[in-house]
């Protein structure tokens, strides 16, 4: 019997999840409507009451709608249960937005998975089966396929010009390596990605573990550089108005 904590104010989704769990034979569901209430389970505020150990949960389902600051909120949730039996319990997010870019920012330390609403029974079961010691231990049946996956390795732009971009990356980049770079900062191209060559990368990371690498744009299509200049001018004006300098 799995014990699940569901933290969500979405009544419809909660009802569906409850029904699915019931059909799976799992009825131990604790439902709260806010993150604060969820944290209360692990940290009763009434000092006079006898200390009741919080139950052990196998999974915490957490609605992203309740998170204002993912890193802080999920960190706080982890902090309050650190001394409880649920210290290592996996957190699975419930997201109404299926855009991976939107979900990505919630995948902070402590999060294990994410389900998109409306939650499918199969997807929920897969998450439950993947919990340690729960699902079948037999290896998954994999099918050989032929294909290429592009990995989007996160980095951050530091400085953008009409010829190149300076980025901060946790990974050191070999000089003269060609790399497509994707980002909303490249809204001047239809695909928001540009091909670039690493013209220089610092040999040492800074104190925060970032390597600073400069990438020169390669094979920029005619007219694009002009768009970039227009965009940069606009950005410059906007920054001035915001008082960001530039």
């Amino acid at each position: 019997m799995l014990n699940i904590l569901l933290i969500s104010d979405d009544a419809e989704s909660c009802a569906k999840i409850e029904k699915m769990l019931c059909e799976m034979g799992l009825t131990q569901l604790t439902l709260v409507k806010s993150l604060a209430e969820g944290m209360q389970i692990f940290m009763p505020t009434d000092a006079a009451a006898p200390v009741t150990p919080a139950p052990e949960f196998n999974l915490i389902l957490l609605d992203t709608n309740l998170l204002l600051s993912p890193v802080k909120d999920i960190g706080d949730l982890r902090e309050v249960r650190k001394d409880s039996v649920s210290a290592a319990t996996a957190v699975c997010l419930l997201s109404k937005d299926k855009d991976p870019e939107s979900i990505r920012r919630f995948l902070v330390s402590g999060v294990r998975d994410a389900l998109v609403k409306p939650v499918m029974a199969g997807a929920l079961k897969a998450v439950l089966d993947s919990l340690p010691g729960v699902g079948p231990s037999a290896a998954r049946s994999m099918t050989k396929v032929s294909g290429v996956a592009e990995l989007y390795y996160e980095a951050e732009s530091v400085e953008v010009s009409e010829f190149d971009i300076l980025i901060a990356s946790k990974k050191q980049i070999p000089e003269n390596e060609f790399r497509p770079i994707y980002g909303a900062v490249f809204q001047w191209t239809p695909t928001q990605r540009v091909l670039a060559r690493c013209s220089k990368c610092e040999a040492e990371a800074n104190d925060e573990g970032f390597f600073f690498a400069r990438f020169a744009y390669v094979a920029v299509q005619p007219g694009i550089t002009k768009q970039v200049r227009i965009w940069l001018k606009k950005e410059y004006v906007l920054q001035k108005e915001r008082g960001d300098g530039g």
Partner: protein
Amino acid sequence: MAQILVLDPEPTLKVILDRIFADDDKFRLLYVSSLPVALEILNGNPAKKTAATAAKQEFDGAVAQLQGVAARVLENKEKMEFALREGLKLEKQIQAVSAETAATPAVVEAKAEWSKYQASANEAKAAMAEAAQAEAKAQKQADEKRARSEELNKSVPAGADEKVGLFLIADSFLQPNPGDWLSGFKKSLTYEINSNVPIAVTGNKATEHLIRKYLIPGIFDYFVKPLDELLAKQNLKFLASEKKELEREVYALAIKSQVDLIYEFEIEAISEQSFSLYSTTPFEKDEFRMFSSELFLRKLERKILARCLQCTKVSETEERYLSEFWFVGVEPFFLHQIRGVIEKSTSKTKK
């Protein structure tokens, strides 16, 4: 001065490049019309240089010989003039002598001396005439050698035997396979100074996947025509410059925004919940990563989030890892797509 060797027949490119570098005396443009001529420059043009050097040496030899002959002419001329002068003195003395003293030993001796001077003058004159002929012949030979040397030196292309900072070549010369072309080209470079000359390509390709065919190790950039002048100026100067630290006359804005560096990896296998891939870098267990693939065709740019379940090094000799990733945030359309991929692959295997 950095040299940029350009092999691209398009005339408008020359106009743009000349404009870009018009006021910059730190760079020189060399335009060639064929790959063999480009190689002559890059290789220092040894055959023609050897011939030109030999011709120059022959010319120098001919000049030395001419000078020798001319010196002989001069020497004989001086001898002749001396003999004539001395002979004339004696002749005057002899003529001034009276009939009584004509037979005196002194006068007889003087007459003999005068005869010797005459003979000497005649000899010198003959030698001078001979030397003058030889001089004329030597002059003609020297003129011929000079003309040949100048012709051969002119045929040695400008810039030969000098370091080339950048070789800019049209993509049409790299067909059909840029990798094979580059390999053959590198083997043809015998002049050590230019053996690692940076190469950049010009062309009209519009899609990333067509352009990336050319971006192999040894090729540093691809300039899409028509060139953006400022961009070309910045990048060409950087590539051609030895120091690689040009003063950045670049206007840049501090913009903090998330970007993604895109890496391509081979997918090994797939299931409804996960997929495995080969990579050149390891992944940490439970780390989340964003992927995109034709196999994950979805409405939102084919991207999917995934969590690393495990990562194993599969080669002892190279950095090669096999990792399994668990799909995160899956919705019905995606699952339907993955099932279709699995069915298709399974039926292909059965066939």
